[in-house]
């Protein structure tokens, strides 16, 4: 096994364990921290793939911004104990069967995996141009239109979020500038 493979198996195993931890932890703050550690390991996988820009952005955006908001919500709701919800389905076995079937389906799908054709950027080319430059060149030349479309969709989501938050505020009346309202707007 090469160093890369060892690293991959380490990251993959830890990601699976941490994800399991995130959904099984009793304390929601610990769950968020499990996800935080998982994001760092995902960044590690990106690093082994020469995608250092993606790794850094993964940490900056997901660990730095998104998870802080999650943590904020967890704190605001302040769950002293775990939330208890009554089962949607009576028999736990039913869920198990469904999950098992999905897992089997994925296992079978594995067989049809095949390596795609060689792209314009083999590893050597990326290492020479650095990943950041390669990504930017692809994004802003060949994939400019999809890039702009994604940007527009995100903009619509942001505007929509602001409109929704504004409406709630005017229903509350007074239209005061409270800290809470500006946070929700930030989140949007």
């Amino acid at each position, binding site marked *: 096994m090469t160093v890369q493979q060892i690293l991959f198996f380490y990251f993959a195993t830890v990601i699976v364990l941490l994800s399991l931890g995130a959904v099984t932890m009793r304390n929601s703050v610990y769950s968020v921290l499990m996800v935080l550690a998982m994001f760092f390991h995902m960044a590690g996988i990106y690093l082994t793939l020469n995608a250092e820009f993606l790794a850094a952005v993964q940490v900056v955006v997901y660990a730095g911004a998104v998870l*802080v908001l999650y943590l904020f919500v967890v704190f605001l709701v302040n769950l002293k104990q775990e939330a208890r919800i009554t089962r949607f389905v009576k028999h736990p076995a039913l869920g198990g069967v469904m999950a098992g079937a999905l897992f089997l389906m994925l296992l079978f799908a594995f067989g049809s995996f095949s390596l795609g054709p060689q792209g314009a950027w083999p590893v050597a080319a990326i290492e020479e141009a650095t990943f950041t430059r390669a990504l930017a060149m692809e994004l802003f030349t060949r994939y400019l239109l999809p890039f702009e479309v994604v940007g527009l969709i995100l903009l619509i989501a942001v505007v929509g979020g602001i409109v929704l938050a504004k409406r709630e505020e005017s229903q509350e009346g007074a239209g005061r500038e409270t800290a809470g309202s500006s946070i929700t707007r930030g989140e949007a």
Partner: protein
Amino acid sequence: MALVVHMLILVGVVLLHVAYATYFERKVIGHMQVRMGPTRVGPLGLLQPIADGIKLFFKEDVIPGCADRTLFYAAPIICLVAAMANLAVLPFASGLVLAKINIGLLFVFAMSSLASYGVVLAGWASNSKFSFLGGLRSMSQVISYEIALGLSLVGVMMMAGSLDLSEIVAAQQQSRFGIYAIPQFLGFFVFVVAMLAETNRAPFDLPEAESELVAGYFTEYSGIRFSLFFMAEYIGMLVMASIATICFLGGWSGPFAVPHVPFFWFAAKIYGIMFFYFWLRATLPRYRYDQLMSLGWKVLIPLALLNIVVTGFVKTIF
């Protein structure tokens, strides 16, 4: 092996710097408030930081009864590790850098966003009102300034065409003014404001706000754990001052070369910025946290975006 020695030297130098930054701060603020600052321990009070260090080391380590122990232990370590990891990518002089990576700037962002978790978790794990409020404030602070901090540096990235800190300095030396602070004055302004919020320094020291929250997130910490937070804060200041120096003030280049001390200008610029930190602390009152939020979202982010657009236009035309 050489790498380990380099690391030890770097950590030693930085810790010494941290110790004497506190002395520098107390002297500067003392004189600004027409006091003497520390004078008793050693000549001119020069041994004061050492005495403080020894005192903190031997103090009783108190842990509140209902604290979440695991996170209470982990929080100061997260802060310190995140602050110290940044030191590895900072170029102090040409070639004088522990790890030259081509995303140095993003690495610093990533690590500084990790540092805020230490603060937030310390606030939560202490199980105390003051700490918790400090932690919450820190979170609201993070979402107010971090975007502006990132955007303020985009102009620099565009002008330098690189995320590698050494290359940013090299590109700066080739540029017309020699420093990016002149063409990027808008970005520099936004960066400086966001830098103060990032390091939790006055006027944005809301998470610790000693007049309202006792000591904010580290109210319940004592002894060595308290000093870990202290070190993390000062290393954070050093790192942010270094980023300002590297990205806007020309890094290690200066008006003339100083023989045998390649990092002379770098150190001089950093100490200038540290003085600026202390000066602000002695001068400005604290912001309210909703004021910081509206400052971040309504002033800093639009300014940073404007800067990016203008930089883009200028770069395309010339």
